[in-house]
């Protein structure tokens, strides 16, 4: 029996994982589109990948280390680092409450 992709993806759960609030209208639009895309990528199951190594990145690379020293060319001043912040207070980024009051 064909398992429909829309039965496999719990879009509300995935949206919570992604910290993304979705409206009911968006869920109605995205659900069939994502199901269609998942059906499309299902063709990969035909491809034999037994004993094939995963590729994270194609060009040979190695760990790059450097001295633990300041790089003046990349330093942002305190003010510059805060300049784009939606809200600041006392030289810090200000965010809404993180812990509930009764904890």
């Amino acid at each position, binding site marked *: 029996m064909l398992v429909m992709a829309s039965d496999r*993806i719990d879009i509300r759960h995935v949206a919570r994982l992604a910290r*993304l609030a979705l409206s009911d209208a968006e869920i109605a639009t995205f659900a069939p*589109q994502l199901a269609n895309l998942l059906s499309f990528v299902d063709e*990969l199951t035909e491809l034999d990948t037994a004993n094939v190594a995963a590729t*994270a990145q194609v*060009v040979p690379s190695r760990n790059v280390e450097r001295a633990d020293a300041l790089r003046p060319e990349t330093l942002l001043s305190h003010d510059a680092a805060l300049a784009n912040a939606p809200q600041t207070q006392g030289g810090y980024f200000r965010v809404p409450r993180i812990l509930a009051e009764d904890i």
Partner: protein
Amino acid sequence: MDPLHDSAVAIATAVNRGEMSAADVAETVIPHVARIDAQVDAYLQLTPELMRAQARRVDARIAAGERLPLAGVPVAIKDNMCLDGTRTTAGSKILGNFVAPYTATAVQRLLDAGALPIGKTNLDEFAMGSSGENSAFKKTRNPYDLERVPGGSSAGSAASVGAFAATLSLGSDTGGSIREPAAFCNVVGFKPTYGRVSRYGLIAFASSLDQIGPFARSVEDAALAYDAIAGKDPLDATSIDRAAEPTAANLPRDLRGVRVGIVKEFDTAGLGTSIDTCYRNAYDELAALGAELVEVSLPTAKYGLATYYLIAPAECSSNLARFDGVRYGLRVDGADVGEMYERTRAAGFGPEVKRRILIGTYALSSGYYDAYYLKAQKARTRIAEDFARAFELCDVIASPAASSPAFGFNAKSDPVAMYLMDYYTIPVSLAGLPSLSVPCGAVVPEDGTRAMPMGLQLASPLFTERALLGYAHAYEQATRHADKLRPVTEGAR
């Protein structure tokens, strides 16, 4: 010298010789670009004051005896690259008010080489799209038919050069975002080997695929821009630490002895008679220049799209997690920090970005990682191996750059139909290969009356940029397809 229409090579030569000042170039270009852009909407922002200030610096350096490879050359920058002190939006509402606090390495290298920044160009939001229509801000038009898309995601970077509203531009290419719009806008678009150009200051989409490259109206100009931006950057650990040999000098004039691979599985007959004829003609032109055409096989290339649409969204979902309303960008308040995150991202991202975040989050989530993300990474290995085998038989692979000429606005409502535009560019991206699109003719679309430009994709082994640009130059100089079409924009030429 005509700084509106001449090549970058000609402009830099004239400015270096003192025949025209960079300041005069800027004063000629600034009103011209504004007039053209009123028709094309390639730019999200023009930066005339920065352009004038940079022109003064260039003129001072020339007066002091320096010679600069891009002296006085007007350039456009895709708006996902940081330019210190300017708004940098990535085409997204979530970065609508973001002012870059530093300059991307590739942009800085252009400026150091003497280029003049015209402005920041429109793009599909976070470089996700193939038409430019996913921009949160405006619709860029194709300079060869204003009712058609310019391609994407580097929509404005392709359209500005195609419309003679920039001499050079920078784009970024993750799955085809330089090559496809270059094909649509009758220009050369070049994606170097992954890692050749630093990504420092490029707003990340899919980090294992993203690569910056130039648009130009000739291969020689693209090579000149590439030479300026390529090379190791200590600020990008993935940038390649090997000498990039200069590519712009002594480009070859023929293809004698070059083996050009034609991919058996990329049969163009299914694309329609006129497109098929266009590409068969392009392959014949390569042969007429002395190339030996050889059939090669990429049996796993057909899995490229499925592989890409797992890997790229997975990396995007991770990269875009940083847009949370805390340090920069939009914030929509909520009762607690979690609600603030969710509302900010709901209001800040457009539908295509949300779809990709959802798919990527799903593909990486517990219980699905092996079936989707890991499977795709293994498929990527097989695709790259197919290319390596093909390059035992040929020096370069020729194929279409896109599945069709430029299409009309709102023509691709189904996301997967849009993704199919990049059928030929995506496998090349997954393999990390250097690749470009060069104009190869024109086709009247089935739904249109005006002939639209077509692009030939050439792809070669890792790190063979110099050879690749040479093949493309020889083809371009012999065929001159780009010169046979004229933009419809007034004052373009």
